[in-house]
């Protein structure tokens, strides 16, 4: 495990490092502790035949904003941002997927909470970030318990605010995702009431600008980049501690939280094909949010996918990897 | 009442006073403008203060009005004072009549202001904003504001400077009336020697930071400008001020 020595950081202003050399530049949108960190830690940036210019975003939606604006060619996001981007008619294309466990997608309650099952949520207040994967997971969990969103008091709060509300006892439960789940658990502030296993698709995506894919050379670079990401993903699975260390340093997360999160979610991801299952499970999210009027139109998610980079990848129903309990 | 702790060793019964200033010094940037000044004004006395421009008359008035405390020395003044400043200093955001009654105790009604303004010939402008007044009108409004206050000490800083001859006579008469009716002490700063002699019991000339000259005016009232004693007093004061009473302009 090591970080790349070939990285030629431009540093300073402009917000981005550049790796590799060559005439072609791939603009990659990234988040802190995201693709760049993984690739570098896995040593996958050493022999690039093209340049990668990294741009950092705080979350999925602004990253997709930049993809739509053609400011970046490619970037990694979770399973709900593409739904909203598609709903808003953004110019984006899902080009790759990976499948991980959904144990990190959880409804957490305070340790001493009287709630035992998802059905107990009836009439309780639940914090959730609107439009997040947890939002969908909450709906799915409630549905499975025979409830609907109307049966609980939904409190729309961003994670940082929700944490405050949760620890301050202002809400009864919090629908959240990793690494926040791990953080809550590790701090001993809560326990999982129910998680998204079997309810949500556990997917995350690489989303590209259609314009970039039309350029053959760029498309080739994208293919190469995706290949490197897959290798890096394997490296993560094999070196959870090393990765957790890098990730913790990059984001400011406590190391233990990072490691928990890697084992619970991040390390379990397997690269999978963008196939029918991807489209149908995503379409379910589209339809759910369309019913809530959060997505203005019932778009066909298929129009926002591209299967050309699937190669010989396994189907998206492939079981995630798991770590042995230690 | 006086907070000074030095009790006199030998008790004395000084004459009653409306103003008592002793060893007053006021320095601006190290330059003493008033320098160990001593001044007493009897209750009910009308004192006129003459002096070169910039000699410190307004500074003295501000001290007596209690507005300037960066001083050394002893200053005793009555509690009820009224000031007409050299510049009118009307509150621009209050109509003229409101300026006149500003600060009067109780809920003074508009009639009080109207009456005072009518006396200075400004009855028709009582509803105006101060900035629409002419120079003389503003000065008269400021004078009216001081006169309605019925003070024990009236401090007037060139209150008639911007008035034409006729208006000035009316204004002078007003001050004289208030003074006689109320029996207040008056300290009038003026550049008009004739005016000083006409109105005052005593004329002071300020110079070099002190009262450099004092002239009692023991003419009977009403006084007549044509009276030779009047002319003599006037001439002697002018001389004291450095002006030859017969000055002809070398033009």
């Amino acid at each position, binding site marked *: 495990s090591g970080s790349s020595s070939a990285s030629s950081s431009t540093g300073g202003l402009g917000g981005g490092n550049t790796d590799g050399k060559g005439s072609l530049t791939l603009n990659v949108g990234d988040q802190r502790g995201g693709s760049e960190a993984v690739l570098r830690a896995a040593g996958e940036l050493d022999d690039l035949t093209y340049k990668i210019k990294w741009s950092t975003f705080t979350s999925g*939606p602004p990253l*997709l*904003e930049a993809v*739509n*604006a053609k400011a970046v060619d490619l970037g990694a996001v979770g399973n709900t941002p593409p739904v*909203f*981007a598609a*709903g*808003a008619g*953004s*110019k984006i294309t899902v080009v790759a997927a990976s499948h991980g466990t959904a144990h990190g997608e959880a409804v957490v309650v305070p340790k001493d909470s009287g709630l035992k099952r998802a059905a107990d949520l009836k009439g309780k207040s639940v*914090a959730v970030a*609107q*439009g997040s994967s947890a939002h969908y997971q909450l709906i799915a969990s409630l549905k499975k318990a025979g409830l609907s969103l109307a049966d609980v008091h*939904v*409190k*729309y*709060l*961003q994670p*940082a*605010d929700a*944490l*405050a*509300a949760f*620890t*301050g006892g*202002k*809400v009864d439960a919090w629908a959240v995702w990793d690494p926040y789940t791990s953080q809550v658990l590790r701090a001993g502030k809560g326990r999982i009431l129910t998680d998204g296993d079997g309810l949500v698709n556990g997917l995350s995506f690489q989303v590209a600008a259609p314009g970039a894919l039309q350029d053959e050379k760029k498309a080739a670079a994208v293919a190469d980049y995706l290949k490197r990401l897959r290798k890096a993903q394997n490296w993560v699975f094999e070196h959870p501690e090393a990765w957790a260390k890098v990730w913790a340093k990059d984001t400011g997360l406590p190391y233990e939280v990072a490691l928990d999160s890697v084992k619970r979610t991040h390390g379990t991801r397997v690269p999978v094909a963008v196939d029918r299952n991807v489209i149908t499970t995503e379409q379910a999210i589209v339809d759910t949010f369309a019913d809530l009027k*959060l*997505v*203005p139109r019932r778009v066909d998610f298929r129009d926002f996918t591209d299967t050309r980079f699937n190669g010989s990848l396994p189907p998206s129903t492939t079981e995630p990897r798991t770590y042995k309990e230690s | 009442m006086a907070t000074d702790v030095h009790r006199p060793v030998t008790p004395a019964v000084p004459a009653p006073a409306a103003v008592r200033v002793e060893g007053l010094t006021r320095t601006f940037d190290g330059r003493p403008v008033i320098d160990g000044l001593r001044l007493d004004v009897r209750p009910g006395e009308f004192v006129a203060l003459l002096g070169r421009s910039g000699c410190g008359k307004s500074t003295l008035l*501000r001290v007596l*009005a*209690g*507005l300037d405390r960066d001083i050394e020395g002893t200053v005793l003044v009555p509690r*009820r*004072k*009224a*000031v007409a*400043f050299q*510049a009118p*200093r*009307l*509150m*621009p*955001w*209050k109509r003229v009549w409101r300026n006149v009654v*500003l*600060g*009067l*105790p109780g809920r003074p009604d508009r009639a009080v202001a109207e009456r005072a303004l009518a006396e200075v010939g400004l009855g028709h402008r009582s509803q105006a*904003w*101060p*900035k*629409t007044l002419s120079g003389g009108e503003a000065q008269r409004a400021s004078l009216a*504001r001081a006169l309605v*206050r019925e003070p024990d000490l009236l401090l007037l800083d060139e209150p008639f400077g911007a008035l034409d001859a006729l208006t000035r006579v009316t204004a002078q008469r007003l001050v004289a009336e208030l003074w006689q009716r109320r029996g207040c002490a008056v300290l009038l700063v003026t550049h008009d020697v004739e005016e000083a002699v006409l109105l005052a019991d005593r004329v002071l000339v300020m110079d070099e930071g002190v009262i450099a000259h004092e002239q009692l005016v023991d003419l009977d009232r009403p006084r007549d400008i044509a009276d030779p004693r009047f002319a003599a007093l006037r001439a002697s004061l002018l001389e004291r001020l450095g002006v030859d009473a017969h000055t002809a302009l070398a033009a």
Partner: protein
Amino acid sequence: MSISHAPPPPTPDISGKSPHESAESASGALPDLVALVPSSARRTRVPRWLRRTTGPVLLLALWQLLSATGALSPDVLASPGTIARVAGDLVEDGSLTSAMGVSLQRVAIGLLLGTAVGTGLALVSGLFRIGEDLVDASVQMLRTVPFVGLIPLFIIWFGIGETPKIAIITLGVSFPLYLNVYAGIRGVDAQLIEAGESLGLSRWGLVRHVILPGALPGAMTGLRYSLGIAWLALVFAEQINADAGIGFLMVQARDFLRTDVIVVCLIVYAFLGLLADFVVRTLERLLLQWRPTFTGR
């Protein structure tokens, strides 16, 4: 050289003895005379409100023009027509109107509290040296603290109901008012304060009749700013457990990448800005009529 005695005689001879020629016949040594043109001859009489709409209307026209000619692609900024349609939809399904209603209520309360707090603190630190020592530095410190970082604290202190939302608006409103009222108080002419003192005004009378009116022009600028900030603060306030409001609408649109809705919100905000300006202008006309100041050429 003639003088008209009062009352001035009618001047039938005016055409026979035009003064306008005189300057031309004057000798070289004599000064050139210039005629002063009465302003009534120059002024065009377009009503003020009409003239003030020029800017916004021009902006709108430019936008429409660029959109129509394709210089502004819909990707970059949808055309006014599209935006109007989206706005229409939002109004029709009630989400915009209800959002405005909810937000207006929050803004009103926050504005009220913020005005009281801002002005109160400004009075304390404007009027008293000791107040300044205690308050001013603290306010100067707090005013630069970003809302985003405060939200978690506010949630813990005030819960997730209406209180933290109103607290955020209050906070946002207080600072511009504080700064401007404070500067206004400290800018009051010392001569007028002296005059007020010499008139025997009590301390409170001095504040009421001299210092506050003197600080009013500054306060108006602060109010103008505050009226804007109150609505801007909604964007943060309505991130806390809100499901309605213009700020919520905006943030939601951003998370859902609804550029069209964002633009509608922006336009609503722009309109609110105009409204705030109108309100303050009206107040100024009422409260500052005593002030004959420079009004532009």
